[in-house]
């Protein structure tokens, strides 16, 4: 009888995961973004907007609700105002960044949502190698406060998202990077919003917590 070997199962799983990631990337953003081993090719304001979407909007609802909309600027302003009124933590200058992003990508004439997988195999430059950047915890603390605190809580003690302080995942490079880059469950994929260096900085700071 044919029995798949352990490594074979593992590589099959990896392929399935990679396919899944490809779908996720395109479906979460509604367009294919070429990511060559990081976020180098995405403009800074786009990265900032994606970070805001993940950290401030996806606290309450997933991104698919956003990317299926095709609206003019006036409607987007009304929606952002409604969400701020309901407690979304977005400052006036951040609202401007978000609005520019939303009206650029999800305006009335934007093409319909892509449901198929396309684009490059993301993050392959990082996964499976031992060469993760070395982080700096001082920068990581500020990055965590901007992007992660809404779900993981002050000092990473956990809220809607799990407690990260002293969480064993901090010592499992592979699993940590995969979760942050590609998301898991309610955790959004941060691949286009944070650079590998920034993620490493956050990790470095998390490792300083008790």
């Amino acid at each position: 009888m044919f029995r798949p070997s352990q490594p074979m199962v593992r590589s099959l799983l990896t392929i399935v995961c990679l396919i899944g990631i490809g779908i996720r990337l395109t479906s979460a953003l509604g367009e294919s973004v070429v990511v060559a081993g990081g976020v180098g090719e995405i403009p800074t304001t786009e990265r900032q907007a994606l970070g805001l979407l993940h950290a401030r909007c996806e606290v309450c609802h997933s991104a698919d609700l956003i990317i299926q909309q095709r609206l003019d600027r006036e409607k987007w302003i009304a929606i952002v105002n409604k969400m701020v009124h309901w407690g979304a933590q977005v400052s006036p200058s951040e609202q401007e960044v978000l609005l520019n992003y939303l009206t650029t990508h999800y305006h009335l004439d934007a093409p319909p949502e892509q449901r198929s997988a396309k684009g490059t195999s993301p993050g392959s430059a990082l996964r499976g190698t031992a060469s993760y950047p070395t982080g700096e915890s001082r920068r990581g603390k500020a990055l965590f406060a901007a992007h992660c605190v809404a779900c993981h809580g002050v000092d990473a003690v956990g809220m809607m998202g799990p407690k990260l302080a002293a969480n064993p995942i901090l010592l499992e490079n592979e699993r940590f990077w995969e979760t942050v880059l590609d998301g898991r469950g309610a955790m959004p994929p941060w691949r286009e919003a944070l650079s590998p260096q920034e993620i490493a900085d956050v990790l470095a700071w998390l490792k300083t917590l008790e």
Partner: protein
Amino acid sequence: MPYEHSNRLSRREFLLRLAGGTVVCLTAEEIWSLASWAQTGERTSDPEFITRVSRPQDLESPPQWLTSWLTPNNRFFVRSHFGPPSPSSLKDWQLHVEGDVKQRLTLSFSDLKTFEAVTLHAVVQCSGNGRAFFRPKVPGAQWEKGAVGNAKWTGVRLGDVLKRAGLGSKAKHVQLLGADRPVLPTVPLFIRSIPIEKAMHPTTLLAHEMNGEPLPMLHGAPLRLIVPGWAGDSCVKWLTHLTVQEEEADGFYMQTAYRIPMIPVQPGATIHSSQMIPVTEMPVKSIIARPLEGAKVLGGTVQVEGVAFTGEGEIVRVQISMDEGKQWHDADLGEERAPYAWRLWRYVWKGTKPGIYTILSRATDSRGHTQPMVTPWNPGGFLWNAVDRIRINVTG
């Protein structure tokens, strides 16, 4: 507001925690109650659902499922504003009946079962079903055809429960609240109301069974309202509070959302709130289940099938057109029928020659209402009921 976001943070506390400063350890209950995306642990939903929103979950049935008289529970569309409540918040579940009543009631699940049991069939359709077809596009979940299902509901009459409580002299509306809660305490609760006449109607049901099974969590366990003939926004899930009162419910989900213009408006127009009325009854509608949009079909005999339903009255006719409505051909109606249920229909199109065709379906109800070619635009994208259409490629 009389209802607390129990086990929740106040806005101030939440902001404080966001802002940093104090280290606060939340209890497991707090974390769970905040984690409305944790959903229910029920993993029985059919994987072929179209996910409109993954958190909180909005799931649409693909059109080809709309070919059975009863929609199986695990294929029934899923929609809520905040996702199901935490199981622990339902552990000591009770139904509270209060407001303008002679005697307030607090009913346990077994208390409810002492009322006369009623079983009926009814379509439940999201009022936003078909929103994706409005032009210009409107905000909201972009439902296409499948935010609708037909089920057998068992429960007790809302009217019987209200009669036991005894209506006061100012009883004009019944306000409805479930146990589901938003992630942030600053988001308004999903509070709805229905007029007292509809509440006392003998078919308005407090349902605890769906297709002969206990109500699944995704569909409102342990108790939801079923308002036959009305859109799903009145069919509040996870019910805990009924409040009899003089006024329509206050708040966003009754006074701003789920409202339509009382007069025809220009597409894209801004309408003053005084011109908007609540979504209630569903208009007559048919949906083509098969063939699917864009399907390649072998010529000769093509079978077209689907469902049709209406708010009040019954479906008396479904017609099919292959020439943009110049000629209409009667479809055969299915044998299974019940007030407020849908009716299956089928049309066998013989002698089909190769080519690209647009197929239209149009239903008419016993009040003489017929589906329009285009649904008048409304800013919320509600109650789409235009003649359904698909394009197919008939091959040789």
